[in-house]
């Protein structure tokens, strides 16, 4: 049974058009050279892997705690973006710095129902980002919003209707778990992150745009999160490309572009 929540539909989040991503997971096998790197950091169990699954495969499924790390390649326009899912477990903590090396964006993930998971970001994970790019973009993401926020729950109903009601909502429609982390807490953390990175708060992206509350379970704000970040790292890609651009002509690269123009002899 579906229970309509009493929230006005018009207030529901921006709908992002759905894209089918066939063989998304095995894309990594083809070893295309990624143009830019995005890293998900955060304590175990906050839902990093689930967020990536939701985005890449458009569904929520059972996960096992990540071992080591995993990565996905996402085609974004003409660019390949690699997204690293790291392991939150203490045991793999040491690998974090290496994953973050040269990252263009880092998603610091916590669980809105778990205060400690936010605290860990500052205590344990922030220092791992030392190896990231100088101009690395940070996003603070509170996951599992479906447990505390009726708005996030509703996303599922719409999604389910659209997908032919694959998975009927299995839990009560009204959120039952106490929200431990408020958005203001995340915004405050964002400010401290910038200070830690010695970045000028005024010159940086505003906290309002960089703090998200998401639900991997319902898909709430998930597309918005990733796609906002993709768009934000595009300048980094262009910068990197122009730095790397050599006088050598890459025939493979040029072929596609050339064909559209009329040849000089035609």
């Amino acid at each position: 049974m579906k229970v309509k929540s009493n929230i006005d539909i018009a207030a529901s989040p921006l709908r992002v058009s759905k894209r089918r991503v066939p063989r998304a997971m095995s894309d990594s096998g083809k070893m295309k050279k990624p143009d830019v790197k995005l890293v998900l950091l955060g304590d175990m169990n906050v839902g990093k892997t689930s967020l990536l699954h939701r985005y890449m495969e458009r569904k929520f499924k059972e996960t096992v705690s990540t071992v080591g790390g995993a990565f996905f390649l996402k085609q974004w326009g003409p660019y390949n973006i690699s997204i690293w899912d790291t392991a939150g477990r203490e045991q793999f903590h040491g690998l974090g710095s290496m994953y973050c090396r040269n990252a263009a964006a880092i998603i610091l993930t916590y669980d809105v129902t778990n205060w400690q998971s936010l605290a860990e970001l500052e205590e344990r994970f922030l220092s791992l980002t030392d190896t990231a790019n100088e101009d690395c973009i940070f996003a603070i993401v509170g996951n599992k919003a479906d447990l505390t926020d009726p708005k996030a729950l509703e996303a599922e109903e719409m999604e389910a209707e659209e997908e032919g009601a694959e998975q009927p909502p299995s839990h009560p429609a009204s959120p039952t778990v106490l929200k431990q982390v408020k958005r203001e807490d995340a915004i405050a953390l964002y400010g401290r992150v910038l200070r830690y990175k010695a970045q000028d708060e005024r010159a940086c992206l505003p906290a309002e745009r960089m703090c998200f509350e998401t639900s991997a379970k319902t898909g709430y704000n998930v597309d918005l999160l990733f796609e906002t970040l993709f768009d934000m790292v595009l300048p980094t890609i262009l910068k990197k490309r122009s730095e790397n651009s050599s006088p050598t002509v890459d025939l493979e690269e040029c072929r596609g572009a050339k064909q559209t123009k009329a040849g000089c002899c035609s």
Partner: protein
Amino acid sequence: MSVKAFELVPAVERELLMGDKARINIECIECCGKHLYVGTNDCFIHHFLLEEHTTPKGKLAFSAEKLLHKYLGLKKPVNELKAASALDRLMVLCDNTVTVVDMVNLEAVASGGARIKGVLSFCVNENPVNGDPFCVEMAVIAAKRRTVQIYMVYEDRVQMVKEVSTPEQPCAICLDGYFLCLALSTQYMILNYNTGASQDLFPYDSEEKKPIVKRIGREEFLLAAPGGLGMFATADGISQRAPVNWSESVIGAAVCFPYVVALDEGFITVHSMLDQQLKQTLSFRDGHILQDFEGKVVLASTKAVYVLVPLPLERQIQDLLAGRRVEEALTLAEGAQRNIPKDKFQIMYRRILQQAGFIQFGQLQFLEAKEHFRKGQLDVRELISLYPLLLPSSSSFTRCHPPLHEFADLNHLAQGDQEKVQRCKLFLISYLREARSTEGANGCREDVDTALLKLYAEANHESLLDLLASDNACLLADSAPWLEKHRKYFALGLLYRYNGQDDTALQLWARVVDGELQDSTRSDLFEYVVDFLSFCSNLDLVWKYAEWALQKDQKVGVQIFTRRAVTEDQTGQMSPDAIIKYLHPYQEATLLYLEHQVLDRKVQKEKFHTHLAVLYLEKVLSLLSQSPVPDREVTEAREQLQNLLKESSLYRVQLLLGKLENTELLLERATLHGKLEEHDKALNILVHQLKDFPAAEHYCLWASASQEPSYRQRLFHLLLGVYLDPEAAIAPGDEHAHTVAAVDLLNRHAGAFDALSVLTLLPEAWSLELLRPFLSGALRSAMHARRTSQVALGLARAENLLLKHDRLKYRGGPVLVSEKKGCQLCHNTFTEPDCVCLPGGVPVHTHCAAQRARNSPRKQPSTTPSNHT
């Protein structure tokens, strides 16, 4: 899991190495081409020649031949061995000392310079930076001093070129270019010995667990990480691949693309670098060493040596496909792309794609199957051949061998599930359609089109007709029985037509029209056939089927002729005369054909007009002879007749008049008299016999339609005369009616009469009031005529006056013409005295003036301003 990627094959058995001496263990190995060196804990180096051969069962096996063993005389274990085949040297680490010995006789190289002391471990640079082929680069961990030294090893000496210190004591080392990858006591790091730049990788407690550093390719290393991980790191300190998940107790690891092979206490594990999944586990007890030498993975327990032989990639892929693990198989194939020559890869990859497609096809995953068929450039006939009877019997196709799939045919695949069969058929339809519109059907268009035709016919698909009506390569011999079987006779006819067999097509269609064969494709098949015949250029066929068509329905059948494009040739088989003659037995058809000629095409031929008129007449007469008389039809038929009689002036009037002699068709007779200008007869009929005064009035208008007004006047007077004729035998009641008619006529057409002569005709008794409209009308028009002529007269006078004035003006003085004077128009001199004077008295030649008058647009010459008022 469960790809069989490797097989463990024994290489050197225990007996050959240490026999039953229990204390002796293998410490290290080196393999270089066929040469295998084994170092033992009792300070021996054993040298074997390893030959590869295939057993009668087709398995790979090794036989080892012992060439030599050499005691180094130190009672210490031999720790490491490394061959430098270009130099024929073997580097040996024993008792913290590296010695360079001869590869063949294992004797130390003579001079004492070929020896390094205080060494914990060493490695050779497989990506050397110095270009000398007779020199090997080596990195050495100094035993106690927290330094790494770089040496150049020559045939007979070693030379240190660099020494770098490290933050902690290193315990494992690897070298690629200038990059040292080091395991320190608490972490891994990358160190560029040329620039001194370093990069921390990640923490690792080397005390607790033995670290692994392994070069796996250009500037990329594989490292043992906490939690039993195999981590990849580049020289830049970045991970480009996701880690693989080993066990905690891993001892050694190597890469044999696309797999990472690792050894732990009880097992060899095989992970794919492509998806990080564990693919195979082989049990291996007492494992001790796992190393790869030029792509060959060699393992050792403490007592024996084995080779881990990779199964051919294709075998692995086939195994995966057999397990229906399509994605994995494709990933494996794609991953191997750069290790296989391009054309060989293409062939292999295509086949795999095709197989993958068939697996998905079998699972009814049509979208994916289609994509794989397309990418694998599948011969469409492979797919068609799955469907029984679709390929033409004449097709030369045979399925590829070995087969691409396990299905005998569609029935086998569907296991009797009819719904599945249907879905497969729909898929094939869409697939073949696409193949037709792309290159996909190249070389086998006949097979494809024939198969498509059969599918369409069977499925009652509307596109069947489109296929046959457009450019196609359907095989007639194969398709015809199929279409017959499915009662697609109309379609079959189209196919015959496409193959130039119009006669057969028509024969078939005629049988359908006649109800001999059942096919409801077209309810208007008869019309279709007629239409076809009207275009058919084969006249023999047209005549052959025209009779059938006319007998079936004259009205439709005659369209064979009426729709036919008009040819220039008016005398041949298709000339109208010939057709009319042919149509003779079919009265209705003849009539329609003549109508077409006379009314539509407006052919001006007396014969046709007369014939048509006669036919119309006959129709009317035959209708009239029926009882009861069908009034409506008679009216219609007479209208047709009357129209023709009125409109046409080509028919033979006398002939028709003769035919009308004894009939009641008075109106028609009147019209005919009118045609002969026998108006009095006509009006007599209309007024006296028919008593139809409006018709009489109409007659006058019609008969004078294209004549002078006086003609009409004459007719009206004539009619008036008929109305007022006292001598005509008028029935008692008619007199009054005639009077009324006459008055009406006069009043209605007042202007058309000559009032004076009318007045003389009128009986005295008529009141003025009765004729008021006539009289006032007549008066008005008379007045009008009078005034108009007065105006005209005045204008003419005025014009005359103007001309006179001009004339007087021009006659003003004498006009001088001499031989010296030139004409103003042509500028030639005058030779004769005749001349014309232009206004102003200018003399010009007569012919010049005439010329000018002709050229001038104005005919009226007098436009010069007049001084008259």
